[in-house]
């Protein structure tokens, strides 16, 4: 004799329970997951000398990167011969501060010389191409004119017009140089394989040499550098974000009366700064133009 067991059917109660205790939390979970920041790697491009205009723009972009919850890491793409001392130091400090919360990686395109490399030293990692020009660590400046007086110009002190005695000039330059040297040593740490004398010779190295000397961490493309930044930030999937656009900047953002570089009589841009002063700048062929 067989006894048929009654077939249990999914009752309405079960379905209700599944909906309340399963699907609703799932949907809530999905909605909550939308609040998880979609990570982005912020890209900052420096394709110019470092001076007031470019420094202002980059500081704006760094501000966006700092304040944005989405931006988890920053990649600096540098192709710069350097620039003014103060603007370079200003960016250096901003990047160093940002690095406390978000990793920053540099990838050098054509050149990161002098101030460009100074800025790169503030980042976690530095990458370049084999043919990139890296280094030129040092300061360059024009000695002030000999102090003199004029019939129709009065000032209230002997160096009001000239800034400093001529023999103080080289000392000031040496102090700036020491600051640069310290920035390199602090930034590169044990990775650096150069003596102080070697560093301060001011040589420009190609990417391969720079890697062997510890000035950079490796040879990499921009996308590889971005991957490295993502790795430092603990990211698996991400998007990139051009911070220049994100900051709402345009090329006409600031109306600068003159560019950084001097123009010759024909209107061609030279490699010399338009104004005299102290610079963290690589100026090839300067001696011939004197």
């Amino acid at each position, binding site marked *: 004799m067989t006894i048929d067991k009654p077939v249990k059917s999914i009752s309405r109660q079960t379905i209700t*329970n599944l909906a*309340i*205790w*399963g*699907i*609703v*939390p*799932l949907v*809530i*979970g*999905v909605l*909550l*997951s939308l609040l*998880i920041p*979609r*990570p982005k790697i912020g890209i900052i491009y420096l394709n110019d000398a470092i001076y007031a205009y470019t420094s202002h723009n980059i500081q704006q972009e760094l501000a966006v990167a700092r304040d944005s919850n989405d931006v*988890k*890491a920053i990649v600096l793409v540098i192709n710069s011969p350097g620039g003014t001392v103060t603007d370079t130091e200003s960016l250096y*400090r901003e990047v*160093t501060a940002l*690095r*406390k*919360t*978000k*990793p920053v990686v540099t990838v050098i395109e054509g050149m990161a010389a002098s101030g460009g490399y100074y800025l790169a030293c*503030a980042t*976690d990692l530095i990458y370049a191409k084999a043919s990139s020009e890296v280094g030129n660590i040092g300061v360059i400046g024009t000695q002030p004119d000999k102090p003199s007086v004029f019939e129709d110009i009065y000032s209230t002190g002997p160096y009001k017009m000239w800034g400093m005695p*001529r*023999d*103080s000039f*080289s*000392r*000031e*330059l*040496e*102090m700036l140089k*020491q*600051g640069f040297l*310290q*920035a390199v040593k*602090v*930034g590169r740490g044990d990775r650096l394989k150069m003596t102080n*004398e070697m560093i*301060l*010779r001011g040589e420009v190295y190609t990417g391969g040499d720079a890697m062997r000397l510890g000035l950079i961490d490796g040879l990499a493309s921009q996308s590889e550098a971005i991957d490295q930044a993502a*790795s*430092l*930030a*603990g*990211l*698996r*999937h*991400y998007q990139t974000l051009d911070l220049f656009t994100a900051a709402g900047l345009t090329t006409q953002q600031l109306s600068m009366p003159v560019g950084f570089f001097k123009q010759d009589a024909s209107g061609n841009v030279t490699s010399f700064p338009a104004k005299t002063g102290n610079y963290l700048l690589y100026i090839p062929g300067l*001696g*011939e*133009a*004197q």
Partner: protein
Amino acid sequence: MKRNLWILAIACLLLPLIVTYTWFYSGMPRTVSAPMPDYSNIDFPRPTLSTEIPDAKPPARTTVNVVLDLQHQNMYSVSEIDPLIRAIESFGGSIQTTSEQTNLESSLKSADVYICITPILRFNQLEITQITNFVKRGGKLVVFTDPTRNASATLPPVSDTGGGGAALNTMLSGTDNANLILEPFDISFSDDYLYNMTENEGNFRNLIINELTDDALTIGIKQLVIYGGHSVHSGGVQLVKTGKNTYSSAGEVDETYSIADLVKSGSGSVLAIGDLSLVTSQYVRSSDNQVFTQNLAKFITSTPRQKTLVDFPVVFTGAVVMQPAGKMEVNGDLVSAASSLETYLQLPSGGLTITQKADGTADRILVTTLSETDATREIFKSLKINLAPKLDAEKDVTPTPTASSTLGPTPTPASGMSVTGEGSGVESTLAAGENETSAGPDTIEMPYFGQIKTKDLGLVGLTHTGGKTTLVIMAATPANAQAFIRNLATGGLNGCIVHDDLAACKVTDFTVPPQG
């Protein structure tokens, strides 16, 4: 049951979050609180400046004539080497600068020292020879170059196809042209700059020098600072040398380099210094630089050059006495001739006095006939002039000079003039009371010329005794001597043969005093 539902709910809630998070994130970010350079403690002290050494009181009379080259586009200004100028003047030096119009040969005749600083314009071969001979005659040559003193130039375009090309901008260095005048003495500057990355004075190109060779130029110096220097190479004394870790931009080799070399050449000397900053107002107070400047000024003004006949007419520097000797008498003709000579010799007005007897306290012009007297004996001896040579009786007494003669043709003497003496064996001393137009010996013997007829012969000699200079003007007769003085006062030693300190010339254009 209830519990299971809660577990289900929590799981469903967390699942999308976990999936989303793990999709985008692999771990925690790695950030670093990076240290900053210690900017506030970076300092570079200024060096202590040395105490200024006051200039010595200049002597009443300058004794050394220094010629400063300014005719080769020299890359400096006289005002910036004021410390050196003042030191030279305080030690009795007189500074004379050249210009584009200056005749270098004339300048060097009066010079004791020639200073050339960073020349950009090329020295021509004649100038190089003149400077070389100046040093061999006892002159001092001081040459400065400096790697910071360059000039840019635009060379014209050159094209092999003749189709034109781009102009070439280049840097002109003073070393090339400085080396032209140093090459005869085997000295050269490298076209480099020296630097030291570890021990320097405020910058890698400012060298601190502690290695100095004992010499009058380095007395009292413990340390010098060079603000940009060329290296110098020579076979002479390396006075100022670099220490360890010094490199040359030319070779990038760590070795000892010289920045100042001293070479003796003949009676003169050459000092090559690869840095100008040592003696400039801006840097002279650094370390012992001003001691070096003072020593350099002493070296420059140490002793006046002993002049030679090549320097004629500039053989005297102060007042001179003219002493007639032999058969010379003080008369109107002699005074007239002396006056013209005074001007030609560039003596100061009133600088020439005529005296019968010189006391040896002043420079002297001795005008004499070819006759041996107390006043002339030693002179002829020192000039090795033999007034009574042993003539070969079979040979014509026509002299065969050892050097080719540039003497002109013999003029026809005025009538009544007796200008030739007897043949061999003519007495060299005329008896007192003889006719004043009587000639001395017919033939004499002297170095470089051998035996030479005295007719129409004028001789000039230069001797130095006891620090005094004697210019000896000699001729066969008083009339010839007076005419010869006028020749010298107009044409100098042109047309004469000059050997060392003896010159042989032809007396021309003389007038013969009336007979009887």
